[in-house]
């Protein structure tokens, strides 16, 4: 009985189960799915081409034009130090996407290996691996990251490592469940009878069959990782100033809000929400498509 979507927690640090973006399921078909895919593709393109596309140096100070509103020169205005917000958003997309990419990449690979080995071997190997995953699962990722930052110092490394560890059990549990179902199917036994080795069956047949579902889940986890890492940057533990980063920009924009200037914090907020929603829609849409195909 699945009450809610398996993995994935809010707002930063809500392991166990993340009921979150399942909410977007109802939107995950048709034009919205297409729109989300286009948005994400555009985001990746902007991030890749940021140095070429951005009108200004994202770190160039110009105190004379502090907190300029939207003008022809600065399409989204400037922040308190007179830096062009649009340029900072474009460059912020790089750290904003790179961090989650590493987190999701590492945790998905680790989780897939652990989950498949646990499902395939069963017995005590399964017991040890599953209990270890439970253990990591019980410690909130955000807390692990803060702990690691306090030891290793602020910067991208500690939060990304902590989140990669914290996200591994999500992937691991999903893969274990999928691989166990798959293993019970007759085709696996027939390959075994034909003399295939366990490793070859897993890599050549089992993994390709469950890979789409793993990929759909990874897309959703990407959004969550983006939120978590942005939160850590907001707290001052992630990407360090003056490097452009959405979370850090919101932190820096807080004092501008008190002066009535919303754009410095609002613009990166909109970027974060749009990106997370888009990843949710894409992940849900993919999961739906897979479910339909299997029926």
């Amino acid at each position, binding site marked *: 009985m699945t009450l809610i979507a398996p993995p994935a*927690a*809010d707002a930063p*640090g809500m392991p166990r189960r993340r009921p979150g973006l399942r*909410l977007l399921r109802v939107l995950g078909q048709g034009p919205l799915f297409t729109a989300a895919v286009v948005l994400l593709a555009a985001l990746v393109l902007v991030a890749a081409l940021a140095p070429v596309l951005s009108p200004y140096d994202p770190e160039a100070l110009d105190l004379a034009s502090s907190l300029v509103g939207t003008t022809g020169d600065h399409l989204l205005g400037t922040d308190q130090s007179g830096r062009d917000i649009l340029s900072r958003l474009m460059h912020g997309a790089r750290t904003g996407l790179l961090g989650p990419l590493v987190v999701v990449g590492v945790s998905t690979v680790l989780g897939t290996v652990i989950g498949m080995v646990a499902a395939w071997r069963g017995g005590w190997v399964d017991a040890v691996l599953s209990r270890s995953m439970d253990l990591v699962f019980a410690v909130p990722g955000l807390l692990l990251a803060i*702990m690691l930052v306090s*030891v*290793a110092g602020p910067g991208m490394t500690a939060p990304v490592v902590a989140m990669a560890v914290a996200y591994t059990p999500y992937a691991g549990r999903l893969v274990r469940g999928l691989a166990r179902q798959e293993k019970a199917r007759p085709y696996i036994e027939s390959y075994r009878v034909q003399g295939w080795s366990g490793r070859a069956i897993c890599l050549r047949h089992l993994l390709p069959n469950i890979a789409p579902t793993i990929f759909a889940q990874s897309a959703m986890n990407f959004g969550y990782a983006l939120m978590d890492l942005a939160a850590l940057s907001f707290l001052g533990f992630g990407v360090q100033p003056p490097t452009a980063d959405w979370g850090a920009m919101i932190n820096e924009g807080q004092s501008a809000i008190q002066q009535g200037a919303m754009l410095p914090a609002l613009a990166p907020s909109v970027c974060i929400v749009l990106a997370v929603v888009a990843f949710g829609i894409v992940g849900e849409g993919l999961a739906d498509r897979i479910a339909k195909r299997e029926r």
Partner: protein
Amino acid sequence: MTRFLLGRLLGLVAVLFATSLLVFGSVHLAPGDPVSFLLHGRPATPEAVAALRDQYHLDDPLPVQYAKWLGGVLHGDFGRSAQYHQDVGALIGSRLPGTALLIGYAALLVAVLGVTAGVLAALRPGLIDRAVLFGTGVTTATPSFVSAMALVSLFSVRLGWFPGPGGTPQGFGDRLYHLTLPALALALTFAGPLARVTRSAMLDELGRDHVEVARARGVAERSVVRRHVLRNALGPVVTVGGTLLAGLLISTSIVETAFDVSGIGSLLVQSVTAKDFAVVQAITLLSVAAFVVVNLVVDILVPLIDPRLSLHGEGPS
């Protein structure tokens, strides 16, 4: 039931043990000598060094260090804060009410907002249902520090209805008033999943025979919904609610920092920035403990509320 409880308790002890090893070991994982790590640029007077060596029992072999440290922790002795020159236990105690009030306030808002939206969506298919699904989809994708910023710019700067970050509230009422926006920022992020699960649990129940029978017997629609639908839908709602409460415990540090609330979460963030390691260790350990205990309590409560949910299920996901 006993076996289930014993298993879960063992799991809880295992998590706390592993966390304590991590928290203790992190001092030694840090690059360089533990003393210089713990000093972090503070003047290395012989007294300060001696105090640290004594506090962390650095002259003993590692297992003995751990045992002595753990013994202290179990007696509530978390060492001294380098930043506040105060006993860590007392420091945390002084910040606890702020955090407890914020989490309680936020949890109340989550329950009210989430359940109301979920019930509305289930009972009013069509426009309202769609609006709730869309709204919860967006708020769930909005991190709490983004909601915090949006709430401050709208209700504090533009409209002036609520105080902005900072300030020292006088008295309980004023304190609640100051905590309204922070609690709302937390609640917006967390109410979505609750609304969604309330909606789907209600829809499940609405389609059941006993609801039809009650209606056919002429029971008023109001009490059909209350007694037959909502009550049976409570199990999943409580499960998700508990998970969300555990999440609130962790996310509070972000909102406390955004609103400059004096609480445990903001203390944790300050202490990491100020390299006040004893405080970081204590709060990490206590937060993980609170997190796993809340999750355990939910797992015990849910079968009591709804006996149909078995204890021996395959576990989450």
